[in-house]
């Protein structure tokens, strides 16, 4: 037997010579919100597509609900809800029709589908838009239609690929609120994101992916504790002068990352470090103290920022 709702071991996906996923191991337990964090091209979407049983693994072992996607794809997909990165809605159809047609793909009968669609549109706060076409909806509304649609078969696992990419901040917060509610209902969520705040808000546990590999795994907090300090002091000395102050900055913190526009000083006490610098007559153009985030974890692990 396989433990977990989803269990992957040595999972590989190659497209010709390109290695999209280079052998990853992970396990998702029931009711957990599990995230794949990483920049574009890290292999997140390829991994998600394998989990969604719409892309056969090149090598390795993958099981969902103890079933093998190579053999039981249909049965597995019947228990999954998928919110793709790009909405795959029928723009010519109404919001409700999109849900009804999708329900038919699962062979849910029409009256049952209508009842479920009404409930789900209520849940995503789009009931009043049931009969309008999808085309004129905003990006956030379309994404909520996609989420409602993905829940039409009452899935055991909901897979979300970059659920809030391309949305404005307000729309993201509405979406997070809905996803958080799904999580509270005990639904298993698997999501990819390159947004740190998203991963921190929604994920119980996550893996950091880079170049097709998993480079770290844990809860958002444990990753921050392990790979970063409590606070970060961001210093800006102006164009071209940041590099001159790396040594000064290193003297007041545990570690320094030099970025093109600023220095990041990793320290337990940001204000304290800044005060020490000022006492030494080193005065940056601007300084900012913030808590460490997964962004810092990623920077530490890969030497690169997540979003260019």
């Amino acid at each position, binding site marked *: 037997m396989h433990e977990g709702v989803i269990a992957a071991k040595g999972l590989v996906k190659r497209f010709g010579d390109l290695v999209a996923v280079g052998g990853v191991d992970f396990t998702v337990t029931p009711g957990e919100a599990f995230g794949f964090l990483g920049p574009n091209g890290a292999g997140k979407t390829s991994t998600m597509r394998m989990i969604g049983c719409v892309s056969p693994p090149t090598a390795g072992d993958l099981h969902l609900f103890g079933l093998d996607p190579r053999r039981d794809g*249909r049965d597995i997909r019947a228990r999954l809800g*998928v919110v793709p990165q*790009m909405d795959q809605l029928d723009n010519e159809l109404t919001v409700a029709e999109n849900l009804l047609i999708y329900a*038919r*793909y699962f*062979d849910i009968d029409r009256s049952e589908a209508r009842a479920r669609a009404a409930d789900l549109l209520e849940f995503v706060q789009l009931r009043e838009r049931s009969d309008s076409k999808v085309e004129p909806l905003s990006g956030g509304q379309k994404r909520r239609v996609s989420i409602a649609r993905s829940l039409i078969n009452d899935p055991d696992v909901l897979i979300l690929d970059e659920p809030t990419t391309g949305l404005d901040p307000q729309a993201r917060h509405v979406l997070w609120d809905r996803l958080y509610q799904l999580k509270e209902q005990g639904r298993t969520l698997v999501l990819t994101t390159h947004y740190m705040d998203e991963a921190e808000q929604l994920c119980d546990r996550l893996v950091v992916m880079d170049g097709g590999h998993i480079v770290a795994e844990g809860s958002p907090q444990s990753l921050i504790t392990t790979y970063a300090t409590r606070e970060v002091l961001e210093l800006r000395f102006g164009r071209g002068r940041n590099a001159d102050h790396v040594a000064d900055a290193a003297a007041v913190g545990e570690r320094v990352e030099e970025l093109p526009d600023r220095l990041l000083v990793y320290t337990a006490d940001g204000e304290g470090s800044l005060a020490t610098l000022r006492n030494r007559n080193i005065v940056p153009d601007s300084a900012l103290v913030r808590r460490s985030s997964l962004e810092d974890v990623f920077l530490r692990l890969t030497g690169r920022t997540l979003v260019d």
Partner: protein
Amino acid sequence: MATPAAIRIAERELLLYRRIWRENVIGAFVQPFLYLVGVGVGVGSLVDDGGGRAEILGDVSYFAFYATALLATTTMFNTSQEALWPTMDGFRWSNAFRGMIGTPLEPRDLATAFLLTFGGRALITSSGVACVLALFPSTRSLGLIGAVPAAVLCGLAFAMPIAAWTGSRDVDNTFPAILRFVVMPMFLFGGAFYPVEQLPRALETVAWFTPLWHAIELCRGLVLGGLDVGSALGHVGVLGLYIAAGWIACTIVFDRRLRP
């Protein structure tokens, strides 16, 4: 009772079709009518009265000769176009087919559903042409009833291979060429306007391999008579081969496209 997957996919098509059925059905009557008047009556009067030899056409008027081919050609044009841009939408633009594959449906179900949806479109188109032909004494025949399903086979013999092509494309830049250099030449050389025996031998041989020639022969023979069972089965067989090959190509191409 579980509903077959292909039918559940076709339900989507039906829902979409409900939005455009008026234009589509009217088009099914108007387009053949215009061709019929323009070519059948116009060119027909030249041919029949101007020393044309009726025995070459099989002792029928040019109007009847050409009109019966329209059953096949109109359906061919209609389903060929349907298999290009509207099909591309599902693969590349709205990505609706990708959404489908995330459910228990398989790419193969989509290929099978295409038999239903393109077949349905072909049925509407060829029925429209048949209704128009029933208006004219020289083409009013019970054979029209048999010619409609024959034209549906014609539509599928084009739509299925073309849909496979569409599924394999990343962009639609080759689509006009398919219509200009594949579909259009068949219209011109496939025996719609004159018997293929009038062509140079080499071209005539080519015509035998086209699905359109078989479909025209079948429709014409059913409506105007003079079709023996052996040739009828032969024509149906060739059209069936094109459809089967198209379906198999669709299953392979769709799987690669939707499940990379």
